[in-house]
């Protein structure tokens, strides 16, 4: 059926039988990215158990992850603003496959969480836990669960996960 188009499909069996020449290479590519002022401060505050944002006086948005320039106004942002470690689920998923394609029994629950104190729609990517997957809803209120201070490294994973907030207000 397929003689009009070039291409020789291979199946896993042919490879596993050793009938196809293969050569392999493991690259050694290591990087150390400069975080810069904006993300540098973000990570520093995460280590202290706080979320921080930047405000742009041009559009009045409070931006998280914080950045030293506003991409809408194209001007430097103006002020550091602490925001809350509570928020609202803007969207979520239940993921049964890891990044390297292993199957999971219990799903990971990635979500975009709108952060209280930042502008509307201003979300960050993180994970939800301690909630039955079937109970997760768009609009659900959540709060961050932090690593113990001694274990924090200045990373987004200093927040272990987010869980449903039991109260509406602090």
């Amino acid at each position: 059926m397929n003689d009009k188009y070039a291409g020789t499909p291979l199946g896993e069996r042919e490879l596993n039988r050793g009938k196809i020449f293969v050569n392999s290479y493991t690259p050694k590519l290591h990087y150390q990215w400069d975080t810069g002022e904006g993300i540098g401060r973000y990570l520093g505050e995460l280590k202290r158990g706080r979320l921080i944002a930047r405000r742009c006086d041009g559009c009045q948005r409070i931006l998280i992850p914080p950045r030293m320039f506003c991409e809408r106004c194209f001007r430097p942002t103006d002020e550091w603003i602490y925001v809350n470690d509570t928020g609202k689920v803007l969207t979520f998923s239940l993921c049964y496959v890891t990044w390297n394609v292993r199957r999971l029994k219990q799903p990971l629950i990635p979500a975009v969480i709108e952060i209280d104190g930042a502008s509307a729609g201003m979300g960050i990517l993180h994970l939800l836990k301690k909630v039955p997957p079937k109970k997760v809803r768009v609009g659900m209120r959540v709060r961050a669960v932090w690593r113990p201070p001694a274990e924090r490294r200045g990373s987004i994973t200093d927040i272990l996960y987010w869980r449903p907030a039991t109260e509406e207000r602090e």
Partner: protein
Amino acid sequence: MIGAGMTRFMHRALETPKELAWHAANAALASSQLKLKQIDCVVLGTAPDAFDGVHMKSEYLADGCGGRGKPFLRCYVGGGTGVYAVAQAYFQVASGMFDTALVVCEEKMSSCQPHPQAAFLTIFDPITEQPLKPNLLWIFALEQTRYMETYGITIEEIARVAVKNKRNALNHPAAQLAAELTVEDVLGSEIMAWPVHRLMVSPTSDGAAAIVIAAEEVARRVSDKPIWIQGIGWSLDSAYWTNRDLAYPEYVEKAAWMAYDMAGVKEPRKEIHFAEPYDPFAYKELHHLEGLQLAPKGQAPRLLADGVFERDGDLPVTPSGGLLGVGNPIAAAGMMKICELFWQTRGEAGKRQLPGKPERGVAQAWGDLMQVGTVVVMGTKKPD
């Protein structure tokens, strides 16, 4: 456009990246009736180097694409590349610097071990996102949830896209994933990342596709049925995707209007006869149709259910079988859609040929972190 060609799309090909590129380029040249020495410049479109496993992949592929001894460059907008490469070649020729261009798109994803999916980890922000070990499925699932939630769309409505496209692909000789399925089959496949089921996702593929474009004087001399590039558009949105509402692809709308304005299209729903939107996931086709102004916001599922987008419908969508049916070697997949526009408007689409005489179609690709829209409008009438 005066020639088009492609390889089969396969889960894993025996051919090396250079060989895949060569086959597609060769097929496009043969179809155009030009020889490589008559090609003034070569444009390569290919997505992340991480898959083929070569840094500066463009240089490695240059000879496989026919770029030796020629002006050659590679353009890159993630998944949008396959359609964007046409825009790049268009302005290279329209500038007057070149009369002909060979545009080749290639992807060999299977080289990446243990699974090409894993390479997608590195597209996320290394500091604010990668530590969470995100998965490509996440961003699509997050966007699909938002889309469904905002417009009250059901999972059955989305599953219909996979059914249509995989069925359309039964008539595409190069297809990897053609199948006759029902909505139940699709929803019965395992959940990868809710609400995405396995049969709603295009898996990784190897393949290549290519086209030849020429300036008017050359096209008229060489071809009896040139298809005109009437409009090109591309638009890149902010990288801060978690700060954007994902329910509607504004960047597709911007790119679409740029192309429609250039093509003189004022009422896309009436003036576009068929469409090839990018469909890496089933819901994306619907999402993109709305961005392309071919369906009102949130209404694409209803139109699909009504049969409007079937091959014999009022506005056929993805007659090729798309990424869900033919395969998804990222940049080559977008180019495959361009090839489909070419073949359909020339009446050369074989068993996939649309009824009537479709004169104008739109192809669209998408890429990055829910960020880029790339659009090309092509048709039988030469623009003024």
